[in-house]
């Protein structure tokens, strides 16, 4: 079966700084794949390279078996959409929700824009009363729902999630995670999600890759991580850290 997303020897360098080096991975259609790491690990750079907003230095990215070139056409942009971390920064401050959702449809020349917008809002649980609001009239969770609706309105096959819940309150995070799971099941979507939170990644993803300093450390199934079946010390450290603070750990008191 052709993987939904295949990455071969990907490298990204900004001037003389190597942000990403020799990353290869493959995500099956309908699968949910997680990228975990701390700041500077290159996980967000990887996501942006796949989205086509960061220039690739070496290697190749293929979506549904088609290798994406340096200059992408509209159709290949459509296949890969992204939800950003900060719901306050990812919606245009001067546009209504209606306008935000209309824009992708207008760019790609979709018909029945009216029906699609109404449907998209329903799908993310907002309803049409939100349609003509500006983003400053929405809460963080509602904004993130709009961002998800905007990404899905183009009917992509891959959804890239860049820390989609880390700026949200815990209770809102649960709602958004549930929504994402439900949409993935309903639309057979492929997810690639970046997060620093191991609990969120293991909750939403089947497999994950741990990254450090722009390189992959280890690739494993979420179940193995949960069971503690890890081979690398770095992963073990992350796992321990995610369990919270333990007083005896500090060793002084």
């Amino acid at each position, binding site marked *: 079966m052709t993987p939904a997303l295949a990455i071969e020897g990907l490298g990204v360098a900004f001037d003389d700084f190597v942000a990403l080096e020799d990353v290869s991975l493959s995500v099956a259609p309908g699968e949910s794949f997680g990228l975990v790491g701390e700041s500077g690990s290159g996980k967000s750079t990887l996501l942006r390279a796949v*989205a*086509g*907003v960061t220039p690739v230095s070496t290697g190749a990215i293929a979506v549904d078996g088609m290798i994406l070139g340096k200059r*992408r*056409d*509209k159709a290949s*942009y*459509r296949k*890969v*959409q*992204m939800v*950003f*971390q*900060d719901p306050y*920064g*990812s*919606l*245009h*401050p*001067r546009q*209504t929700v*209606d*306008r935000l959702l209309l*824009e*992708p449809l207008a*760019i*790609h020349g979709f018909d029945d824009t009216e029906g699609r917008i109404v449907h998209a809002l329903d799908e993310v649980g907002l309803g049409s*009363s*939100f349609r*003509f*609001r*500006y983003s*400053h*009239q929405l809460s963080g969770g509602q904004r993130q729902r709009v*961002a998800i609706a*905007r990404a899905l309105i*183009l009917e992509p096959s891959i959804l890239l999630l860049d820390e989609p819940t880390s700026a949200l309150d815990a209770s809102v995070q649960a709602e958004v995670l549930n929504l994402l799971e439900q949409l993935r099941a309903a639309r057979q979507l492929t997810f690639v999600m970046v997060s620093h939170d191991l609990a969120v990644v293991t909750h939403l993803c089947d497999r994950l890759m741990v990254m450090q300093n722009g390189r992959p450390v280890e690739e494993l199934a979420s179940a193995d991580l949960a069971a503690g079946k890890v081979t690398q010390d770095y992963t073990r450290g992350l796992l321990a850290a995610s369990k919270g603070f333990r007083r005896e750990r500090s060793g002084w008191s």
Partner: protein
Amino acid sequence: MRDVTMTRREWLLTDRPQSRMQARLGRAYVAWRRFTANRLAVIGLVIILGLVVLAAFAPLLAPHSPYIGDLAKARLLSPGPGHWLGTDDQGRDILSRLIYGSRLTLQVVLLVAVIAAPIGLLVGTVAGYAGGWVDAVLMRITDIFLAFPKLVLALAFVAALGPGIGNAIIAIAITSWPPYARIARAETLTVRNSDYILAVQLMGASPWRIVLRHIMPLCISSLIVRVTLDMAGIILTAAGLGFLGLGAQPPLPEWGAMIASGRRFILDQWWVAAAPGFAILIVSLGFNLLGDGLRDALDPRGSGQ
């Protein structure tokens, strides 16, 4: 649907508008309320509206002809009944000339704004968004224009094009776009790397679409404010050119030219120069107050509340 009828105010201020129109009107209403809360800004608006009314109904409002004076009986009369602001050396009624002159002032101001602001906006946003050599070339051109004092550059252009009100307008427009380009570029740089612009790029939008539909609307409010604040300067530049004999030509009642001709009698018949001077002062003040008010009303940081 809702059976309770909302007052018009509630309809405008609702946080769940039902249509595009309502959302837009609601937003405008919020800005308007913020604007009217500022008393000085309202005074500015009243002054400018007064100027517009004066210009529109000049033939009805002016008591005398602005061009034909009574040289025999009415030369350099002091202000009094019949000629409220006195007459000039040609025996023309100064009040009537001021009223007709408002048309020229408004014309200059509007044309300069219509020509200069879009040029500045386009140059600035394109330079800011494109970056690289496009940015370098456009901004160096802007810097060259900025390097000359405005009036001197306008003088040079008028000298080359020939004196006249039309050429004066073109000259002023050509010299006043660079600051707008600078502002638009600065504003563009702050938003070009934001996630919402990235999101539109991800949809496959063309650079032109992003600049025109997503970046420009963000720059417009600060530009409008800057343009209204500059109006006073534009009027003064136009008056300066008129004063130097390079703007409006006699017998056009342009305010700057009127001051220039009144200069000869400034000690004995002070009102000839003072009246147009005062008119320039009031209109400049009006635009300044309006600009200040708009800055507060359109400031996007305030729109969240």
